[in-house]
């Protein structure tokens, strides 16, 4: 079954400079791990915003888990995202003043589905996840997230993305803030958790060396046309 499918999608950004992206036809299968390669300004973030339902396409259909999210009302899209997606950013994933544990539990706040999927105490489930990601419990419970190292913060972000087992994990350059050694360790943990939960993984990056780990690697330019009015 198809996890994500974009058909005839067109999205224009009316900022300055104006920006236009078109995705004629692109799919991800359920359980697949996909790496999208693209440089900065290639429209990676815009594409992720479209897939997650944060931007509304001007034209076309975006199906996630068989549902056309472009046709949903904004509030439904937000709930849909809470239910189906775990998101990992490049950096600054966490609310710096809140504890890592609260940051993780925040993902459950907006999704009843993900809450009910957890058996037992949500905090305990979160701590099980962070333990398997090599994060000490004391650190999760008491320190503000800002006190964690960048590597630790990224791992907390993985825990937040995966808690309550969403169907999809979307990661936007999650390793680019890490040094080479931590990158490998981080990806090992990420893949281990993704495999364990059986979810689909979509990662965007500019780093081709990551390609080996994924089922499929595609260049963003191969699946989309972007245009940017330069100068003006």
């Amino acid at each position: 079954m198809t996890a994500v499918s974009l058909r005839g999608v067109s999205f224009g950004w009316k900022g300055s400079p104006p920006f236009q992206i078109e995705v004629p036809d692109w799919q991800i299968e359920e359980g697949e791990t996909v790496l999208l390669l693209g440089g900065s300004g290639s429209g990676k973030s815009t594409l992720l915003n479209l897939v997650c339902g944060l931007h509304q396409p001007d034209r076309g259909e975006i199906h996630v888990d068989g549902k056309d999210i472009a046709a949903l009302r904004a509030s439904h899209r937000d709930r849909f995202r809470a239910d189906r997606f775990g998101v990992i950013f490049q950096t600054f994933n966490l609310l710096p003043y809140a504890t890592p544990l609260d940051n993780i539990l925040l993902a459950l706040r907006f999704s009843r589905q993900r809450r009910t999927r957890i058996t037992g105490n949500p905090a305990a489930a979160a701590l099980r996840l962070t333990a398997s990601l090599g994060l000490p419990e004391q650190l999760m419970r008491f320190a503000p997230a800002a006190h964690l190292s960048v590597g630790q913060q990224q791992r907390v972000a993985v825990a937040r993305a995966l808690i309550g087992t969403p169907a999809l994990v979307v990661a936007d350059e999650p390793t680019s803030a890490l040094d080479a050694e931590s990158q490998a360790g981080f990806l090992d943990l990420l893949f281990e958790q993704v495999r364990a939960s059986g979810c689909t993984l979509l990662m965007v990056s500019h780093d081709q060396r990551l390609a080996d780990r994924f089922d499929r690697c595609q260049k963003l330019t191969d699946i989309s046309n972007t245009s940017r009015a330069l100068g003006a």
Partner: protein
Amino acid sequence: MILARITLRSLLNRRLTVALTILAIALSTALFLGVEKVRTGARTSFANTISGTDLIVGARSGSVSLLLYSVFRIGNATNNITWQSYQDIARHPSVAWAVPISLGDSHRGFRVLGTTPDYFEHYRYRGGRLLAFEQGAAFDDLFDTVVGADVAATLGYRLDDPMVVAHGLASFSKHDDKPFRVAGVLAKTGTPADRTVFVSLEGIEAIHIDWKDGRRTSGRGLSADMVRKMELTPKAVTAALVGVTSKIKSFQLQRDINTYETEPLLAILPGVALQELWEIVGVAESALIGVSVMVVITALLGMTVMIFSSLNERRREMAILRAVGARPVTVFGLLVTEAVFMTVAGVTIGVTVLYAGLLMARPVVDAHFGLYLPIDMLNQHEFALLGAVTAAGAFVSILPAFRAYRLSLADGMAMQT
């Protein structure tokens, strides 16, 4: 629950600006509520000062000024009423009782009030209470005095202490040849009675007997014993408190006195005169309230500015919230919640500060203005005002919250800068 915890953490994270904002709201609330409390307190205190007196009679002047000098000992009488007129009034068939009062002398900064022992039977305050004696009793000798609670406390008077009365307020001349004795000390009332020295009308006459126009007329003067043998019926009194036989006769009696032919007199109904006073004071009150409302608005605008300026650095937080599924409305709500929290904290601290301030200011205000501010729990009206402040706090936060709503819609979760 988790959102509340996160909001609290977020505020703690910005504790300095948040604390200053809360402080500004607290001070403005204390000021606003303080003006309101002092205003209503002053009104209650004034209204409580006279009770059970149906009419006040004095020489023809303004009704407010008659009320002020006769009851509140504020200002001075411009003219007196003759003893004859007083007696005519006292004999009027509608008059149940009449108590003359004679003002104009002072004793070490406190006013001296000449009257008859009836004063203690008929003068009532705060819903009909009579003056109570802490020590002693009403005067019955020519040189007896009764002192108010503050007079006794300030000057250290106790029963049977001697005292000397000066003629005129803050006068240089002392009537040191006629020693008075403290025959009674009144209990605290929270009215001008606390700051008054009471003597008999004859006593007032006695200290003036060899004085004319503020100067001693005959050499070394008369001894106290010689004075006792003299005719001491007063020729004039300052005003009279009058009770009527039946309330409905008040107006007729007032008309009769105001049209008294031998002398121009003025009779006032205390409640009506107080109302006139409030109309005069009302303008100043409105100005004070206006200013304090402005201060509250300024503090709330300060909070809005503070939230606005925090928005840019918090766009990242909004992107995170949106990514985990928060609706833009939730982001909006969080900012309004934040503002409401700060306002409620500010209002609570403000009320605390106000009560602490009132407790400290009460003795000072009492000593200087003779106003005994009641310190009551917040009443319904005051709760409504505080509610309005909180609502205003929520209302002004709509601006930055709406901006956050717009930003979070536009940014999505891709806020990298």
